[in-house]
């Protein structure tokens, strides 16, 4: 059940209406939300519910073990066992076949014929997001930031239909307290605006870029010129932004209508002037997770290590790349970001050691930093999107050696890509906010007319049928 469908709209309205009907009964609210979330998840494959139930059960028991063990060793053991079980589930579904194929391929290169049975099972949607949320819960309980939640609350949080498939990656400590407020929207106008903005990004912009520029160029680079392939790479950077941030906007919007406040996930990422800054603006809840549960604890432990210390960003970004998908292209994606972070960190440390500050921030230097950052990020996107390493090399080879024709780049496509990047670089006038504020002051009838009109515009401009969100695969 994709967000931009009539089916989801009906599902959401029924869920919302029933929640409002039981809004004075706390347990009933939670049960309704849980039932709706499980129905939403089961709409893809009901068998995947077993995974959600396993996650809920494992982490419920582990969290209590962590909180109630009388000794520090016992708490630590419960934490390790809980995280180990979460990672075992993730590893089984997502990574087993990848590693088995890699091992067999490597042995084959060495002349050793090996055969490893493959699981060949479909990857449950959202398993990576579920795992990260579950781990954050156990660690927060271990750190004393939060206490073990009642089973029903934990189940509602982990299963919540707005976040279960592609985030944002929330924490028990920020979402469970909000269950007492559901289903009262704190700012319905802003939530409606988020939904509409997300629909426009996904249904109109992302669909257009995917079908008219990106898919064909990545599949058959030989049929395009060097300029066109390069343009497709930049177009993919724009596409994945509107696709993923569009999904997040819709998720935050529908959650907001139910009274939930979900964390921001994007903040004009292509405005970044360094790769480090990029990760403070792109998929912010993932960055927050990596910072709090990998970088900070590992930094405290290995930060002063002569070899591991400087390479820590690289190691973490390699893991982040692998989190996105079980393929070498994702490892390279993480590696490119990791190396850039290592280089930026080394430069900062060198300047600090030599006592030289940053050079004056001239316009030229700012532009240069933006341009360099965009090239690094775009190179990483090329590997992220490529179907295989050989496909990525074919793209790079075409960019390096192909002709310079631009005949297949339409003015509309160029305008769309430039617009998506450009609107992040300049401070856009707050027209949307003013319209939203004005709409909030009007009566319900003009609001409903405006909403219906906006939905019509999105539907007319979008294609018939919508492709799944890119981040569903992770």
């Amino acid at each position, binding site marked *: 059940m994709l967000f931009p469908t009539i089916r989801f709209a009906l599902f959401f309205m029924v869920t919302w209406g029933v929640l409002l009907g039981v809004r004075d009964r706390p347990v009933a609210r939670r049960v309704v939300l849980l039932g709706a979330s499980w129905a939403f998840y089961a709409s893809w494959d009901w068998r995947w519910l077993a995974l959600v139930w396993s996650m809920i059960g494992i982490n419920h028991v582990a969290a209590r073990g962590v909180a109630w063990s009388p000794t520090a060793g016992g708490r630590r053991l419960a934490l390790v066992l809980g995280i180990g079980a979460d990672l075992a589930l993730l590893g089984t579904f997502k990574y087993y076949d990848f590693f088995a194929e890699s091992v067999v391929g490597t042995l084959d290169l060495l002349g050793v014929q090996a055969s490893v049975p493959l699981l060949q099972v479909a990857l449950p949607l959202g398993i990576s997001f579920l795992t990260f949320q579950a781990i954050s819960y156990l660690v927060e309980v271990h750190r004393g930031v939060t206490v073990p939640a009642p089973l029903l609350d934990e189940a509602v949080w982990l299963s919540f239909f707005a976040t279960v498939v592609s985030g944002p990656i929330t924490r028990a400590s920020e979402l469970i307290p909000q269950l007492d407020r559901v289903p*009262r929207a704190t*700012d319905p106008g802003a939530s409606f605006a988020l939904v509409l903005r997300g629909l426009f990004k996904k249904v109109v912009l992302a669909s257009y870029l995917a079908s008219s520029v990106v898919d064909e160029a990545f599949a*058959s680079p030989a049929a395009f010129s060097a300029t066109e392939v390069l343009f497709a790479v930049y177009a993919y950077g724009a596409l994945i932004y509107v696709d993923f941030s569009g999904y997040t906007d819709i998720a935050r919007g529908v959650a907001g209508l139910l009274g939930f406040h979900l964390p921001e996930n994007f903040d004009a990422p292509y405005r970044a002037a360094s790769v480090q800054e990029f990760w403070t603006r792109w998929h912010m809840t993932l960055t927050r997770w990596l910072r709090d549960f990998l970088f900070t604890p590992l930094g405290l432990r290995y930060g002063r290590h002569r070899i591991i210390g400087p390479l820590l960003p690289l190691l973490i970004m390699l893991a982040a790349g692998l989190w996105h998908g079980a393929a070498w292209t994702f490892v390279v994606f993480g590696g490119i970001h990791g190396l850039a972070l290592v280089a930026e960190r080394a430069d900062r440390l060198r300047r600090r050691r030599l006592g030289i500050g940053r050079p004056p921030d001239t316009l030229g230097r700012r532009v240069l930093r933006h341009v360099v950052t965009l090239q690094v990020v775009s190179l990483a996107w090329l590997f992220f999107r490529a179907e295989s390493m050989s496909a990525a090399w074919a793209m790079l080879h075409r960019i390096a050696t192909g002709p310079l024709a631009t005949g297949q780049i339409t003015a509309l496509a160029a305008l769309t890509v430039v617009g998506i990047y450009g609107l992040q670089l300049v401070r856009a006038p707050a027209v949307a906010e003013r319209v939203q504020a004005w709409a909030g002051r009007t009566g319900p009838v003009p609001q409903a007319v405006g909403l219906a009109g906006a939905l019509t515009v999105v539907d007319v401009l979008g294609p018939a049928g919508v492709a799944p969100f890119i981040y569903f695969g992770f």
Partner: protein
Amino acid sequence: MALTTPTPTLPPDEAPPDGAPRSRGAWRPFVVAAVALVLGALLNADELQRTAARQTVGWERDVLVDLAAVPQEVADASRLNRPRRWAESLLGTPDPGGSVIERPAPPPARPPVESDVPGTDPTGSSTSTSSSTSTTVPARRTPTASAPLQVAVLGDSMMQVLGQSIVNGAAGDDRVETTLEYRVSTGLTRPDYFDWPGRVTELLASGPLDAVVVMFGANDAQGMVLPTGSEPFGTQAWLDEYRWRVAWVMDALAAGGADTYWVGQPVMRSDSFSARMAALNEIYASEAALREHVTYVDAWSVLSVDGAYASHLDDGSGPTSVRQSDGIHLSRAGGDRLAAVVLDEIRNDWRLDR
């Protein structure tokens, strides 16, 4: 290190006095959304009707079509569907047409062509077809860099990866020029969604084609709307009609002077879906066998192990994934493997030595 995000405070006029939600205004955004959706249904009544008609033929589709007729009637009476119609005409959105296909007139027989290849029968022999049309064996020219072989690659979402692999596989040979056109969720059972016979006619009229690679079927194992009513998949009437449509496309391509390479469906992970695909493959293969200008490419044997589904096949360097996780579509490696077979057939027929 702040690990928690503070929850937003409620506006003063709506803040509950004692932690309990207050009822006032709670329904208002819901009512706004509900009215917007109803109004949206009226503004987009035409598209709702089309969406309902695109569903799989069966009782659910019948119910949806009946339900969609309600906003359609209201929108017609109130003219609320006019803005969308006006916007679509402005944008040039094509009208997909009705849900029942009129049987197109049988294509004319292929005209005999003078052969420029020594040893080739210039006229060929007439072949019998189950659709009562007759075609003749084509005379093949010799493709060159200045007059390359014009190959159109047509199909549904299965053709996306396969077609891209065919385009890639032919890219290094300047004697072959490929064009790929795939339409997701299409086939021969639902011309109301996309009219492939009509598209084939358009393509043939737009310029000469030497060869056409075709792959349909993955979306075709569903009910069909016939002039006599809905027909569920697998009945004799359904099979007869589907066979007729397959034959029509084959004969239309022949009449347009193109060789056809009809790619069958591969084995699927689902046994029941595989059985349906096998039934369609029998139609493709048997109709192709009746026509000398049509080559049936057996994807089933190319992408299976002893006829059974395999997500991975050994490519000489260990197991390689040949299918996508849905157990239906091809991975890039699977597409490449099948494309190599298709291209070999084309090269052999057209004497394109590497």
